[in-house]
């Protein structure tokens, strides 16, 4: 009988492994897709896998790249951080992919980072993150804190006259770093300690009663109060539901979220949330021709015209086009040549402007503030006048203020201290 349960487990493992196999021979350029298709993060990452398949499909219809067809290699790291590193290694060493598009959480990126540096391959990372990193092998097509959090706070402060701040987040690296940056920024702007409330909750926190009550109490002091939310994924639904039930509407205490997009809203009844905000670099509701075409293509590809698009999808759209352009420019898929060629490459984004790859491996983005509508979409209420350059090292943190990243020769350093003139690798410390 012991063998029976062992066999069951083995069968499961096999099942997981088999789903990741998609091989074909021939002279193609292989592109790795490293997104979780099972486990906790599948909710967000599956969409990105589909986006990549669509982009690769479209590129092939246009005749491929360098006269060769592109071939997607999909693996499933199953929301398991060490498995991300294993799967990345498999993609690079076994499948010889030219570039990898993948990861969502910062911890998965940190897990694969040494693999990409060791094997000198390329990773395009499409999600907003906490900054404080710049690797030779990673291209950060999502927002750095100065492309999302800081402009959002500026908007609340200047346009809405917010005086009191609740920084609420899930307890892990992205919210902690972002809130540290925001706290330093707010204090620099003259906000006193007593007007800042910081609150962390565990992953998947579902009982928000007392925290929402506390926010309500904090907001009843007569000053305009706003919540800056770095609450992650699944915890958002019960949070917003509790806000709605306790009668906190957007005109009383607005909540601006950095992790809530169209996809997350598609799982919520948004009527009580109308007017709460989100800061992104792209919204599905952006009314440009290129975006309408992208949405049509997405609906055609998924054969479902209710599927929404979101910010990380646009990041993959930009990242993929940049990679294509850099490969064409370099005439080869060799990672070193592409790394050199991609800096300065400019491609259209979906909101009617252009994105350029900067020497610090971050890109330029507009910052948009949207208000949630009752149909689960965002109404854009504010946008930065121009493009904002992603800043790898925050100007508001004491340790990273003096650091810059520039991967052009002769500096070629992700962590260069302008005060001491020393380069110390790619990550912090």
């Amino acid at each position, binding site marked *: 009988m012991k063998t029976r*349960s062992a066999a069951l487990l083995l069968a*499961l493992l096999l099942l997981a492994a088999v789903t990741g196999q998609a091989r074909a021979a021939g002279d193609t350029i292989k592109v790795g897709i490293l997104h979780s298709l099972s486990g*906790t993060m599948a909710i967000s990452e599956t969409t990105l896998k589909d986006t990549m398949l669509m982009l690769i499909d479209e590129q092939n219809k246009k005749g491929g790249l360098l006269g060769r067809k592109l071939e997607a290699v999909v693996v499933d790291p199953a929301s398991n951080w060490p498995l991300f590193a294993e799967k990345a290694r498999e993609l690079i060493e076994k499948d010889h992919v030219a570039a990898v598009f993948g990861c969502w959480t910062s911890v998965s990126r940190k897990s694969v980072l040494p693999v990409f540096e060791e094997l000198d391959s390329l990773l395009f990372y499409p999600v907003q993150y906490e900054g404080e990193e710049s690797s030779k092998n990673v291209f950060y097509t999502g927002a750095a804190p100065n492309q999302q959090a800081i402009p959002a706070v500026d908007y609340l402060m200047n346009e809405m006259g917010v005086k009191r701040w609740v920084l609420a987040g899930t307890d892990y690296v992205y919210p902690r770093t972002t809130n540290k940056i925001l706290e330093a920024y707010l204090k620099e702007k003259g906000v006193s300690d007593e007007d800042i409330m910081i609150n962390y909750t565990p992953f998947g*926190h579902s009982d928000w009663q007392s925290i929402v009550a506390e926010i309500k*109490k904090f907001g*009843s*002091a*007569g000053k305009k109060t706003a919540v800056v939310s770095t609450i992650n994924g699944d915890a958002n639904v019960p949070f917003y539901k509790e806000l*709605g039930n306790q009668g906190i509407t957007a005109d009383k205490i607005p909540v601006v979220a950095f992790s809530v997009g169209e996809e997350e809203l598609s799982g919520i009844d948004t009527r009580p949330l109308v007017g709460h905000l989100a800061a992104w670099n792209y919204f599905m509701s952006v009314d440009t021709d290129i975006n309408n075409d992208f949405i049509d293509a997405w609906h055609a590809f998924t054969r479902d015209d209710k599927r929404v698009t979101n910010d990380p999808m646009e990041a993959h759209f930009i990242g993929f086009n940049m990679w294509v352009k850099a490969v064409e420019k370099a005439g080869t898929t060799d990672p070193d040549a592409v790394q050199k060629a991609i800096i300065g490459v400019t491609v259209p984004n979906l909101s009617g402007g252009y994105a350029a790859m900067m020497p610090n491996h971050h890109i330029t983005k507009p910052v948009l503030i949207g208000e949630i509508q009752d149909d689960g979409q965002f109404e854009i209420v504010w946008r930065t006048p121009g493009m904002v350059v992603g800043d790898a090292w925050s100007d508001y943190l004491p340790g990273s203020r003096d650091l810059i990243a520039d991967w052009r020769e002769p500096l070629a350093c992700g962590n260069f201290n302008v005060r001491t003139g020393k380069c110390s690798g790619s990550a912090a410390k």
Partner: protein
Amino acid sequence: MPATCPFFQPPGVVSHLALLLLICLLLVPVSGRGDEGGFDQGIDLLASRDFSGKAAGIDLLAESGDARAKTILEALLAGRLFHVKKSGRLVVAEKNGRTYLLTDALTSAPAGTAKKRALKKVTINNRLRTGIKSALARLALRDPDPGVRLAAVNAMLSTLNQESIGLLTRLRKEEKDSRVRDALATAIDIGRLRSGDPALQSKALARLDGNLDPVVRNELIRLLDTEKDETVRRQARATLASIERRIALSGLAETLFFGLSMGSVLVLAAIGLAITFGVIGVINMAHGELIMLGAYTTYVLQQLLPHSIGLALLLSVPAAFLVAGGVGILIEKTVIRFLYGRPLETLLATFGISLVLQQAVRTIFSPLNRSVATPAWMSGMIQINPVLSLTVNRLTILAFAALVFAGLLWTMKKSSIGLQVRAVAQNRAMARAMGVRAARVDALTFGLGSGIAGMAGVALSQLTNVGPNLGQAYIIDSFMVVVFGGVGNLWGTLLGGLTLGVANKFMEPWTGAVLAKILILVFIILFIQKRPSGLFPRKGRAEV
């Protein structure tokens, strides 16, 4: 600006201006023809790209005194006001399937249909929304419905200034409804506090004593900061202290409610496990996924009955019981039956089943969360006083948990299946000798526990995500409650769940949510060290 309005000031904060325009509106008969120029200019300004232009347009519209302005502002607030892209015509659009049904905003004449792409929405932001709302609220001060008037007065309390206090004082003279009169009195007393006249202030303070509205408390704090007169200060301090005492008391009641409600969720999630784990000793790692199945049943039923989501929710209680119970019996018959008496293998096998169920749901329903709507009778809150309100959905779930517990208790103590379950649990061999079909009872017991997990899922669908990961979030808590309460004892599960919920909520404000959770775990570990069989140890033979 109509020439009849004497309060002209340069545009400032929207709400301030909105007040002025209200006074204007009150002076200018609403039905009368207003300034045509202002109305037209306002309509033109709505097409501005920036929000300040729109704000000016909204002000002009509201000031115009034109009867159409109210409808247009309401449509704007509801997000139903659009421009036709080609002609620039202002229309109110009603969604009708994939197209929009248009009505001309100015003439109220039908204007055909259009696709979304042909329309451009007149966008508003929170600031404009607040402005429109306060303009409409001020119009509502004279609404015939006292409830609307009360809401309007309460909305004005937070943005009181000299003019609005004057207006409210005048309104109070005509007001008949006692609740609206009380609210107006609060506003007037706040006005007196600001008057600087010690006699008036003292009178107002005496009347505001015990008023828990946050506006009053903030006003008192401001008064203590600015007031020089020592007697007024002393009285204000006393009033503030008494208000704060009451707030603290309400806070205590609120925390207790939060704790009980969290506890009720824990009890709901755990009580099915109290049956499967407690009575037949199966460590069922798939318990969370059975809860998830219940939640998905609610989703499916709501999809089938899109027009009566409340009914769908009620129907999903028995449906979820049957679905989850059925799956439970299937699991028992196909896997667990072969593994009785080997907890480790059971644990692994059920863990595998939990993964299979999760992935199955991902394949069938997509990995995205599904949206389960809350019926109107479960939304909102019951206001006890300005600082204490109980949310209706939590109250409902509290009652539901009590009902499920009572039902289960009855089943176990009074019904014949309950008797058989207890007989098999106490002494399997003897029960079989008495003619009880032990294998069948095992399956039914497991099905009962699973079915109750499904019912818990229906409740959870109203609180949290309905997604493939729903179950994982509750499995650990469920085991914690059952072990803490005493394996195999329903009362233990009830008391354990409520204790943990209340303890968690009382700790949370001091320690934060993360540490509170850790402390609870540490406490349980220590408790289990002292009393290995939980709060209510099983009497008699420990092992079967």
